């Protein structure tokens, strides 16, 4: 499955950095690689508050920089980590047929700076790849629970390709609510996506996860079946069992639907406006 994910990303692997990252992924048995990287600039502000009592010995005022023996740092706290999460990797069925859907993301970087890649798409029974959305983002940690992400989004599938600039936030809202909110810009207008999910622990391994993704567009894009305003939603309620933390089979019910203008476009094409399916799949990460 990772190969599939990699294949989907590979199209986007334009920059050497990403290509490098991609190459590494299949080989990462344990799921993470770490390399020391050059240290960031050291903030000159004193790390400790010092209270000097008058008329006694005082701290040196002009401290020389510390010279470490053989240049060795006693701890390596500035490491690179790589992880990827395939949140949805599922077959969807209902009376009218079925489709396959995936939604994943991966990152590579330090505590503060990461290269972040997202990809999702749907493959119909006839092999048509739709809803293909792939993003390459620079991610910067900015607060306790949130990161800012900027980069590009490419809609690449069997439909016409589109490119967007992307800017958004991702993190953990209060009450452990996972949230992604991203705005997209191109010469065709603007778009926005809101994604959220929440883990309800029925037990410590059996977890019920409601999830939703909402898409908004400032202008219609008939070729891609996108309508102005609130265009579409993909939502699901999945029950997974964390057999292992990193590998959890699940079953669920999903609903994907189009609204307003997008619904009209779909109707005119004779395609489905709203679809409830039964889904089963695997959630995995490394």
């Amino acid at each position: 499955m990772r190969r599939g994910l990699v294949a989907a990303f590979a199209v986007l692997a334009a920059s050497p950095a990403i290509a490098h990252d991609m190459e590494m992924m299949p080989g990462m048995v344990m799921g993470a690689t770490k390399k020391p990287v050059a240290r960031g600039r050291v903030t000159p502000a004193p790390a400790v508050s010092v209270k000097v009592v008058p008329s006694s010995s005082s701290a040196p005022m002009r401290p020389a920089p510390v010279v470490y023996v053989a240049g060795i740092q006693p701890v390596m706290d500035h490491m690179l980590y790589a992880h990827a999460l395939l949140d949805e990797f599922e077959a969807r069925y209902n009376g009218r047929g079925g489709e396959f859907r995936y939604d994943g993301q991966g990152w590579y970087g330090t505590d503060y700076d990461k290269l972040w890649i997202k990809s999702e798409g749907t493959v119909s029974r006839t092999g048509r790849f739709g809803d293909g959305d792939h993003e390459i983002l620079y991610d910067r940690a900015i607060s306790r629970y949130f990161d800012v992400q900027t980069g590009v989004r490419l809609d690449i599938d069997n439909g016409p390709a589109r490119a967007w600039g992307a800017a958004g936030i991702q993190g953990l809202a209060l009450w452990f609510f996972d949230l992604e909110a991203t705005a997209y810009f191109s010469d065709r207008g603007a778009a926005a996506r809101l994604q959220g999910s929440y883990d309800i622990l029925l037990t410590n391994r059996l977890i019920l996860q409601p999830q939703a993704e909402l898409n908004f567009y400032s202008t219609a894009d008939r070729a891609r079946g996108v309508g102005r305003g609130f265009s579409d939603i993909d939502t699901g309620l999945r029950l997974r069992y964390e057999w292992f933390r990193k590998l959890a089979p699940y079953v669920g019910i999903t609903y994907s639907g189009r609204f307003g203008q997008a619904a009209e476009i779909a109707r005119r094409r004779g395609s489905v406006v709203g679809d409830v399916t039964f889904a089963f799949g695997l959630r995995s990460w490394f």
Partner: protein
Amino acid sequence: MINFSLRERLALSRRRFITGAAGLCGAGVVLPRGPARALSAPHTDIPLTSSARFSLAVERVPVVAGGRRMTGTGINGSLPAPTLRWREGDTVEIAVTNRLDETTSLHWHGIRLPADMDGVPGLSFAGIRSGATFTYRFPVRQSGTYWYHSHSGMQEQTGLYGALVIDPAGGTERAVDRDYVLVLSDWTDADPEQIVSSLKFQSDYYNFRQRTVGTFVRDAVRDGPGLAVRDRLRWGAMNMAPTDISDVSGVIYTYLMNGQPPETGWTGLFRPGERVRLRVINAASMTLFDVRIPGLTMHVVGADGQDVEPVPVDEFRIGPAETYDVIVQPEGEGPWTIFVQSEDRTGYARGTLATRPGQLGPVPPMDPRPLRTMVDMGMGGMDRGPAGHDRMESGAAMQGDMAGMDMAGDGMRHAARRGAPEAMRMPGMAAHPAPVTQSGAGERLKEGVEVQSIAMMPRNRLTEPGAGLEGNGRRCLTYADLRATRAGEDARPPSREITLHLTGNMERFIWGFDGKKFSEAEPVRLVLGERVRFILINDTMMEHPIHLHGFWSELENGQGAFRPYKHTITVKPGERLSSLVTVDTPGLWAYHCHLLYHMEVGMFRTVVVS
């Protein structure tokens, strides 16, 4: 598909552990599955006499876990490393040969020595390269129970630790009939680097005891739905969980006593009526332990190698890197079980005091696991204020300290500015206003990427035995109980104070001091000859055993001049405590949290003494 290594797959079931000395027991032995057995006893027994010269080879040591052969890191074929016995007044010479394929080091934990002998790569020396031999040579100026361990990467987690027993000058002083070391540790088959990586991605990776719908229903029935909902909302509003006790749990750890897994455990022989000294060393990477011997009273006579006035207890908590010496005198035949639970109650190490080999005592049921409280969150809670104690503590702190009043004034202003004037109503505070947040750092500290929470009302918790030990009906040791048998050597008041906040973000698994990782921070600079007070404020909701290399940290625990001399001080969540340090040895020293993974991700400072 994701390629799980066997280790990783096994990581979610309880491990069995067997250790064997290399070469001694035959490499090709096929082990039956079933209860774990040791192939050969590690060399943890205290040698009959002290020595001044040692030759140690750091090497891979075979370990059998769950029927599978693995390797750990040990010394001279032993995991834990052999117990070394020194004598105060001797100059020891220890030749350490590295037979690993990576750089190694040995740090003599709690030993006062020249900085270049301290064994920290980058600070003391360049480390011991593969194939090389480094000879440590230093005079031994202290006695008691200590330990040694690698200070390179994650080698400590893989088994590179051993006990040090130092006889007092002028011969062996053994007022006991039996003398044993108990090296407690946490063994895992998983790759330590992988553990950190997993925690960076999912900080509750190893916690399978979180609140669920089931516990919500139980609490709603017990406390009423309103209270249960409010409690969930309150913790949720902080994105924190009261079930967050240990970052790494018994899910992947097997807790060892002298290298022995709990199925059989370690056995110490005695005859009824004998006095048995147990030198308990917590060599675990990430685990606080609670030690008791059901049916026996333990007399705590030493802490971190230094003698203390005997304290009779039923149970004590020991943080990573701390040592306690206890004396027991079993009158009956027993067998007596030494029961050592991890703080989060996900597992235990076990030993037996027996009159003949092979005897096993009963294993008591695990205690209820603790939950974090709002006090742990630094939200105060003055209900259990340790009254008389604070007064004593402040008295000691104020002796000759002209900054006292000034400090208090600052503290009061800051507390008020934060809308927390209640902090000033702690018992004893009016007369001796010391223990409040008072540092500039605290004022500057803001929540952010590296600071998940700030203790609004850190408090004195020295009289508390620790999470999960409150009200269990046993006499539990507290820091306030520790009283040195000798008055402190340096009667000078501190000339200045250094406040350090212990900070972190569990969600991102970043830990540091004052909201900064090691790589982002300036070193702590001390002047040779000065006397300094370190004030530690724990803003996180976890315990942190803080270790200052090279110097004694005299814990200001209300015992006046009889402060206990410690090398590692475990600071509870939401706690503020202080220690005095006489800065008498120049060089570069390490100052860090002794939870290995906290240290490795940044909870570390270089201390420069010049």
